[in-house]
Structure formats: structure tokens, C-alpha cells
């Protein structure tokens, strides 16, 4: 039994505040509240609890506008994992490898972060944990060369899914964005016509800068989806709503911990409900 809540300006202000605190951003929050007010009027909702439910639907509707499915239809298919430093790319790849291996897929990993200390070692451990092969070269070798090798190994070994790790890079570093564009082109050249999912990894604790990340990474590579990590913390990850709306990029997975099974397929309504928990 929920106590009756009055539908007034104070309620809408409270809800707008909750959206901003969830990192949804001022502009998107105000758009959502305007949409909510319209629906409340049209549907003649008079109980504040039902207003909250309607709000969850508004948000879920925005997120469901995009195709949240993965499309890995060729053999091999490729998943390129990109994002700024420390967001959870390497760990997410370990989880994805486990996820697809459990579906009976033959998975190959490419250690294309040849720059950061012990990055190759880290991915190597995930390869053993998930029972997948890994293509790696010496530290400081050319990442594009590792990807080139990995694409050809994927073809030769009859691999179903090739997952490429890349070094963390800030989106405002032009040379690093250029390197990423080159890696992306290598994949398309070596595996022409293959299904390619380029997943941008975003940390749920990130604020409005995530929109800038999504914009600039989109210029370097064709982003097909987002992995939103660290949702097991207290951050809500609301920035994906603005990104979904402004850039039409869908969320495909969420990370909810540091273990091999802590990856979930993205569910817009569950995400909307969790925003208010």
C-alpha cells in the first residue's frame, strides 16, 4: 500500500532534481520532465506514485528507440572495444569472452593495448579465465599490427568472434583518435563484410563529459553500442539517456562487478527502474 502523493509543481521539481542527480544532465532532464507533464495531462494522472511509473516509461521509451541487440552474423564477427582510460574495457572483454564461450562460440582475443604497463598480461589472465586463445605481440609493438594478425588468425582458425582490446585514450587527443581510426580500418580491410560491433565503454560514474566522449569517439570509429560499467556502485549512469537521444547510440551491456559473470544484457526498463532505487 503506497500513500497517495499529490501531483503538483513540487513533485515535478523533485523528480527533475532526481534526474540531474542521476547524471542525466540539465537539458535532457528538462526534456524528460516536459514529456512527463504532457503524458500526465493526457492520461489525467492524479496520483504521484503513478507519475513516477510514467517517468520510468518515458525514460525506458527513449532507450528502447535504439537497437540494443548485438549483431554478430558472420564468421568471424568482430567486436572492437574502445573508451577512455580506466573505464573497464579489458575487464568487459573478459566478461564478453566468458558470455559468448558459454553460448558455444569459438572466441579469440586480440591484445592491441601494447602501450600500458602489464596490459597484455592482464588480458592474458582473462583469456585463461574464459578459456580463449589470445593474439599478442611484444610491448610497444604497433597496435594495428596486432589487430592485422588477429584478423588473419581469426579467419585461419575458424573463429566465431574476435574481440579486440585497445589502449585507454582520451578523446581530445587527436593522435590517439587517429590511431583508433587506423585500427578500425585495418579490421574492415582484413575482414571485409564481417559483422563488426564497435563498443564504447563508459564508466557509470562519469558525468557530462561522457557526451563529449561519445561524440569524439564516434568521429574516429563507427560506434554500434555502449557497455556501461560499474553500475554496482552508487552512480546511476544517466548519461546514456542523453547519448541515446542526441547520438542515437544504444546501450548493449552493463557491467555490475569485477568477476567473469558480472555482465548483463541491457534492459531499458530495468535500467529506468534502477535510476530511482
Amino acid at each position, binding site marked *: 500500500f503506497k500513500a497517495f502523493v499529490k501531483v503538483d509543481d513540487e513533485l515535478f521539481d523533485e523528480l527533475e532534481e532526481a534526474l540531474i542527480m542521476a547524471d542525466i544532465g540539465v537539458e535532457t532532464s528538462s526534456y524528460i520532465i516536459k514529456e512527463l507533464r504532457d503524458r500526465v495531462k493526457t492520461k489525467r494522472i492524479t496520483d504521484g506514485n503513478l507519475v513516477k511509473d510514467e517517468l520510468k516509461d518515458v525514460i525506458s521509451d527513449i532507450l528502447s528507440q535504439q537497437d540494443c541487440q548485438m549483431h554478430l552474423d558472420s564468421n568471424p564477427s568482430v567486436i572492437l572495444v574502445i573508451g577512455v582510460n580506466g573505464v573497464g574495457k579489458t575487464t568487459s572483454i573478459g566478461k564478453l569472452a566468458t558470455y559468448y564461450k558459454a553460448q558455444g562460440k569459438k572466441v579469440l582475443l586480440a591484445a592491441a593495448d601494447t602501450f600500458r604497463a602489464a596490459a597484455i598480461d592482464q588480458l592474458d589472465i582473462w583469456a585463461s579465465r574464459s578459456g580463449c586463445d589470445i593474439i599478442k605481440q611484444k610491448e610497444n609493438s604497433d597496435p594495428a599490427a596486432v589487430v592485422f594478425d588477429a584478423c588473419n588468425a581469426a579467419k585461419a582458425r575458424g573463429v566465431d568472434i574476435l574481440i579486440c582490446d585497445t589502449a585507454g585514450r*582520451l578523446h581530445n587527443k587527436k593522435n590517439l583518435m587517429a590511431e583508433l581510426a587506423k585500427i578500425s580500418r585495418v579490421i574492415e580491410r582484413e575482414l571485409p563484410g564481417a559483422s563488426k560491433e564497435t563498443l564504447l565503454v563508459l564508466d557509470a*560514474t562519469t558525468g557530462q563529459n561522457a557526451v*563529449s566522449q561519445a561524440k569524439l569517439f564516434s568521429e574516429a570509429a563507427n560506434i554500434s553500442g555502449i557497455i556501461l560499467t560499474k553500475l554496482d556502485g552508487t552512480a546511476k549512469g544517466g548519461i546514456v539517456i542523453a547519448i541515446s537521444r542526441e547520438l542515437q547510440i544504444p546501450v548493449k551491456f552493463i557491467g555490475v562487478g569485477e568477476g567473469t559473470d558480472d555482465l548483463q544484457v541491457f534492459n531499458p526498463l530495468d535500467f529506468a527502474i534502477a535510476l530511482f532505487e
Partner: protein
Amino acid sequence: SLGDKLQGVFKRLRGKGKLNEKDIKDAMREVKLALLEADVNFKVVKDFVKNVSEKSLGHEIMESLTPAQQIVKIVNDELTALMGGENARLEFSKKPPSVFMLCGLQGAGKTTACGKLALNLVKQMGKRPLLVACDIYRPAAIKQLQVLGEQINVPVFALGSDISPVEIARQAVEHAKKHGNDPVILDTAGRLHIDERLMDELKQIKEAVEPDEILLVVDAMTGQDAVNVAEHFNTDLEVSGVILSKLDGDTRGGAALSVRQVTGKPIKYASMGEKLADLQPFYPDRMASRILG
């Protein structure tokens, strides 16, 4: 920029007539929006704007010919003052070795910051630090610290991943005393502020080796959640300072204000890149104008 937006708010005045309370209210709305867009926490923004609003209702602003500029100056001065006035230094122990413990959320930049701090202390103060691998969980974390140590010729103390981090810290301090290393820099595993068991581990390390500095490493692009993180870490450990990382990005960095406001602790360093040389002292006035955009 905030200056332009405020000019817009006041342009109806065009030099004729004085500001009234509504003008100040409209101006404060622009200040609030600017800070929220910069990722300053909502509640921190509310308090800050209330404070600035009171200062702006003074006579000089109401009669000023350049109210927009005056208000931007008040906001900038208030932000700078809140950020901590001047650069804060590291606390060293009267009885070496000093112990510095770095902590924070997953991926914030702790391990790299340990390397940077070590290099900085070697170069600036001729210190002989000891890096300590207390992250026994993350795959290849120990190796990562060892590779960094090798790059800067600083020894790394590690006991593998089967010994408790509390014990590793304890033995590291003993090792430092025996071999004349100072300071001891503890790299800890990234953890959630709501993970009781792991926050407890930090409390136990603190109790065992009594650090002279407990530095919270915070990612400069953190959003509204910065307040939760800083509050929990500070309540549990009594943090002594903050290192703000990834400031070489294009984030406005409002998390800096939120963390400072909620803990009252100084931001001691700014990490401005991935290389070990990329550690700089933190300048409150530069951060203030960066947040304002």
C-alpha cells in the same frame, strides 16, 4: 561562457536603471546551470549559489555599470577560495619512513599515481621511495606496479597475491626501515565505497601502519556521484588529501569542487597525463576558471 550568459541576462538594462532582485535571481540561475553542466554536485551547487547570491545582493553590484563582470568575479573568487586558496603540501613524518596510502574507486588512476608520486619525490626532494603492491585482486596489478617501478628505478615491495594487503603493508614498512627507504607508497586495489569488507581492509591497513597521508584518487570526469564517494572514504578513513586524475581530458572537472566541499580536504596534485612525469601541483585558481568554462 558564463560571462556572456550573464551579459545576456542584464542586457535589457543597457546601462539605464539599477539591478533588482529578479535580475540577481536570473543571474544566479545562469551560475547554477554553468556549474551543473560542469558536473558540480546538485546540492553543492545549491549551497554555492545561495552564498554567491547573498554576496551579489550587495550595493556595489546593484549600482555597478558592469554587473555581469562583477558577478563573474564573485563566482570565480568564491570558487577559488573554496578550492583551497593556495597549493597544499604533502605531510612527512617526524620519524621516517613516512607512509602514504593511495585509495579510490576502480580505474581512478591510483597505480599510475603511485609511480608518479614516487618519481616526483625522487626528482624534487631526492627521496628514496618504496612502492608497495597491496592490490592482490586485479589481474596483473602487481606486475603493473613492478613495470612502473622499473621505469623510474624505484624498488617495488611485493609478496604476491596470497598474503593479506594488511600484512604486505606491515612488512613493507619494516623493509623500508631496514633499507632506508622513505616514503613508503602503498598502492591499494580499486574498491566501491559501499563495499564494507574492502573499506574495512583499508581501515585495517590504516591501523597497522598509520599513514601520514591517505590520498583519495578521484577521476576528474566523475559526475554527481563524486559526493557519495568522497563522503564515504572520508568518513571511513579520514582522508588527508586528494589527487585529481585525467585532467588532460576536456572535462570541466566540477567533481573537484564537490569533493573539496564535502571533505574539506585539499586537492594536493593534478595528474595531467599517462606518463609518470605528468604529475603537477594543484592550482585552485586554474581549476576554478576551468570549472566555469
